[in-house]
C-alpha cells in the first residue's frame, strides 16, 4: 500500500498542467467547430483516446494518467473534449467486436472528432429494463430497415453516427433477439428532436427512426448478439473522470466557502456559524472519501483488477453524494442558491455535468445522476446480487421466461 503517485505520474501531471495552462485559455470553445478544434488539439497532445491501443491511433496510457488529465482539466475548468461517448464506449466496442473494415472506416475519425458519435440504447418504455427495447431492425440482406424511437441520446443533434441496439428477432427471449449495428444519423429516416431537461438546456435528444437504413457491414458482432456486446464492452473509460469529478466538487466547495464568508447572518459571516460549519465539515469529509475511493478504483484498474460489478458501488456513492452535496449548498445559500444567472463570483460554478451554470443548475443536475446509466435502484440490485450474492428477486419477467 503506497498512495504516493509514481515519479512518472507526478512528472506527467506537471507536463499536463503546463500544457493546459498554455493551451486551454486560448480562444472561445463554444461553437461546434471550436469544440472540434479544441478536441483535435487535445488529441494531438495525447490527451484523448489515452487508453486506446496505439495501433488504432490511441496513446496506450494508463487509467491513472487518463484520470490525471481529467483532474487537471477540472482544476483549470478547461472545456472537455467532444465525442466522449464515442471514445469512451463506442470505439472500444468496435475495437473488441468490430470487423477490420469497421475499424479502418470509423476509429480514426472518431478519435479526431471528425465524426461525432451517439448512443441509441434507451427507449421511452425501455429504461431500467433496457432489454425490453422495441426498435426493430429488419434484415433486408445487405441492410437493415430500422423503425422505432430512442431517447436520452447525448450529442444527438451533432452526431454523425450512432451505435444502435435494435430487435432483430421478435420471437426470441428478450435478451436474445437484439443486435448491435452502426447507424448513419445523416439520413432522411432519422429525425433528432432535442429533449429539454429541467435545467432548461437540452443535452439529450429523442431520435425517431422511420425506415432508416443501417448497412449490413455495420453490424457489430453476430446477429442477435447485441445484448451481450452491450453488456461486456462498456469499460474503457472506467475511472477516467474519478479524480476530475472530485476536484470539481472541491472547486465548488471553495466557492461555497467563499459564499459563506460573504453572506452574513446574525451580524457575522455564515462561515462563523457553528451550524453551518458542522454541515460543511461533514460535506467535506464525504468529498474526501470520494477522492480516496477514486484512488482505490484507479489502483485496482492499475493492478488489472477489473472493478466489475463493484463499479456500481462507485456510481451509487458519488451520485448520491452529489445529490446531498448540492442540496446542502442550496440549503446554506438560501435564495442565492436559486439564481439561474450568476451575479456574484460565488454564484457561478462548474456543475460537473458538462453544463456550466449556477448552484441551481448543479442542484438540478444532481437529480439526474441517480437516474442515468442505471438508476440507484438498479445499482443496488446489481450490488445485492452480483457483489453480495443475495438471492435473485422474484420478478415477473423471470417467471415468464
Amino acid at each position, binding site marked *: 500500500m503506497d498512495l504516493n503517485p509514481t515519479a512518472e505520474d507526478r512528472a506527467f501531471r506537471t507536463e499536463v498542467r503546463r500544457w493546459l495552462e498554455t493551451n486551454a485559455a486560448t480562444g472561445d470553445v463554444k461553437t461546434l467547430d471550436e469544440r472540434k478544434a479544441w478536441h483535435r488539439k487535445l488529441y494531438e497532445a495525447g490527451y484523448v483516446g489515452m487508453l486506446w491501443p496505439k495501433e488504432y491511433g490511441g496513446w496506450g496510457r494508463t487509467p491513472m494518467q487518463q484520470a490525471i488529465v481529467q483532474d487537471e482539466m477540472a482544476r483549470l475548468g478547461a472545456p472537455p473534449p467532444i465525442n466522449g461517448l464515442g471514445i469512451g464506449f463506442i470505439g472500444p466496442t468496435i475495437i473488441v467486436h468490430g470487423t477490420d473494415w469497421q475499424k479502418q472506416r470509423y476509429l480514426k475519425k472518431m478519435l479526431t472528432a471528425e465524426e461525432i458519435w451517439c448512443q441509441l440504447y434507451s427507449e*421511452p418504455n425501455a*429504461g431500467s*429494463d433496457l432489454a*425490453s427495447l422495441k426498435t426493430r431492425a429488419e434484415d433486408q440482406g445487405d441492410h437493415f430497415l430500422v423503425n422505432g424511437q430512442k431517447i436520452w441520446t447525448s450529442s444527438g443533434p451533432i452526431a454523425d453516427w450512432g451505435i444502435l441496439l435494435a430487435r432483430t428477432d421478435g420471437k426470441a427471449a428478450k435478451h436474445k433477439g437484439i443486435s448491435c449495428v452502426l447507424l448513419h444519423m445523416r439520413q432522411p429516416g432519422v429525425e433528432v428532436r432535442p429533449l*429539454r*431537461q*429541467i435545467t432548461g438546456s437540452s443535452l439529450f435528444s429523442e431520435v425517431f427512426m422511420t425506415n432508416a437504413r443501417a448497412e449490413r457491414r455495420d453490424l457489430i458482432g453476430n446477429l442477435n448478439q447485441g445484448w451481450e456486446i452491450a453488456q461486456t464492452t462498456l469499460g474503457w473509460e472506467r475511472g477516467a473522470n474519478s479524480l476530475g469529478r472530485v476536484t470539481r466538487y472541491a472547486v465548488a466547495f471553495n466557492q461555497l466557502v467563499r459564499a459563506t464568508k460573504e453572506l452574513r447572518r446574525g451580524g457575522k459571516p455564515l462561515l462563523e456559524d457553528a451550524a453551518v460549519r458542522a454541515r460543511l465539515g461533514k460535506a467535506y469529509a464525504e468529498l474526501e472519501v470520494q477522492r480516496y475511493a477514486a484512488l482505490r478504483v484507479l489502483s485496482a484498474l492499475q493492478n488489472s483488477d477489473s472493478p466489475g460489478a463493484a463499479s456500481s458501488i462507485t456510481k451509487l456513492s458519488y451520485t448520491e453524494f452529489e445529490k446531498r452535496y448540492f442540496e446542502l449548498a442550496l440549503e446554506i445559500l438560501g*435564495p442565492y442558491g436559486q*439564481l439561474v444567472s450568476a451575479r456574484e463570483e460565488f454564484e457561478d460554478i462548474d456543475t460537473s455535468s458538462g453544463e456550466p451554470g449556477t448552484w441551481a443548475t448543479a442542484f438540478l443536475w444532481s*437529480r439526474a445522476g441517480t437516474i442515468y446509466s442505471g438508476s440507484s435502484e438498479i445499482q443496488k440490485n446489481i450490488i445485492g446480487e452480483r457483489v453480495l450474492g443475495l438471492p435473485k428477486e422474484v420478478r415477473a419477467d423471470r417467471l415468464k421466461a
Partner: protein
Amino acid sequence: MDFSFSSDQQLLKNSARGFLDEHVKPATVRLLWDDPRGESDTLWKEIAQLGWLGLSLPEAHGGSGLGMVETALLLEEMGRAAYPGPYWPTVLAATAIELAGAEAQKKRWLPAVATGDARATIAFLDTELDWRPEAAQTRAEKTGKGWTLSGRKRFVPWAHVADVLLVPAQTPDGLTLFLVDPRAAGLALEPVPVMDLATRLVDVTLDRAPVAADALLGGPGQAGPLLAALLRRGAVGAAAEMLGAARRCLDMAVGYAKVREQFGQPIGSFQAIRHKCAEMLLEAENSHSAVYYAAWALDAKAEDAELAASVAKAYVGDAARKVCGEAIQVHGGIGFTWEYDLHLYFKRAKALESMYGDGDYHREAILRRVAA
C-alpha cells in the same frame, strides 16, 4: 377537538381545486414563464371575484373575515397548481396593514386588495442572509417633508407588480415599517431570475427614496414584533403551499408507479418504489398535520402558535423537498424533462423553502422557545 375540516372548509378546498384545475393548468403556468410580469391580470380578477383575496380580511373592509386555516387551504391548492402570482405576498401585506395600519391606510388598501385592484408585498430580507427583522440594514432618515430610505432589499416577492411595498427600515427610534410606492423616485427594481420561473423575486434598491410622513405603518420603532408575526404567518402560508406542491408530486409519482412497467410488472410493485412512495406519503401526512395545526393555532391565538408556525415551516420545508425530489427519482428520466410537469412543483417547493425564514431560522426560533 376536531382536526377535520368543516364542511365549509372542505367546500372551499374543493372549489379551489376545481377552479385551479381549470384555470391554472400546467400549460397556463408555462405560458406565464415568458411573461415579463409573470402573472395574469385576468386570473387576478377572477380570484378576487372568488373572494380569495379578501378571504381573511375584515368584513368591514370588503373581506370575508375568515382565518388562516381557510387561507392555508387555498395556499395548499395553489401550491398544488404551482400558481404564478402575488397572492400570498399581497394578502400578507394586507394583513400587515390590517394589523398595524391607521384607519386611512386600511381604507386606502384593504378594499383595493379585496377587489383585486391592488397588489402589495413585504420586503423582509436585506442584503444579509438574515431573516431576523432586527437585522434590517436599510435606513430611514427624517427630512422636512417625511423620510428618505436608503438600502437594498433583496429577493422581494413580486415587487415589480406591487402597488405598494412594505419596507422595514432602521430609524433612530428603532425598526420602522414604511409604505412605499414602488414607482417612486429613488427606487430601482431589478428582477432576479430564479429556478422556479413562476416565482418572481426582485431586488429593490432604495437610494434616498423619499416617502411621506404619513407613510409609516404603525408607530416608529414598533415594526419588530409586527414583522416577526408577519414572518411567522408568511411561513405558515409558505408551508401550506409547499404541502400542496408535495401532494402533487406524490400523486404524480404514485400514478406513474401504477402504470409504468419495467421487467414485466408495474414499477409500483417493486419494494424500492413502493416503499419510497410510502415514505413520501408519511412526509405529506405529517406536513398536513403541521400546516393545519399551525394555521389553527394562529387563528385560535393558541399559546403555542408561534412555536407551531416555526415547526411547520422547518418541518414542511424539509419534507416537501424530500417528497418532490423522490418523485423525480420514482419517475426516472421522464421526471427530469422540461416537458413533464413535475419540475414545476419541485422548483416551487424549493423556492419557498428559503423564503419567510429558512430552516435554520425557524429551528433556532423553536429552540429559543423550548430551551430557555
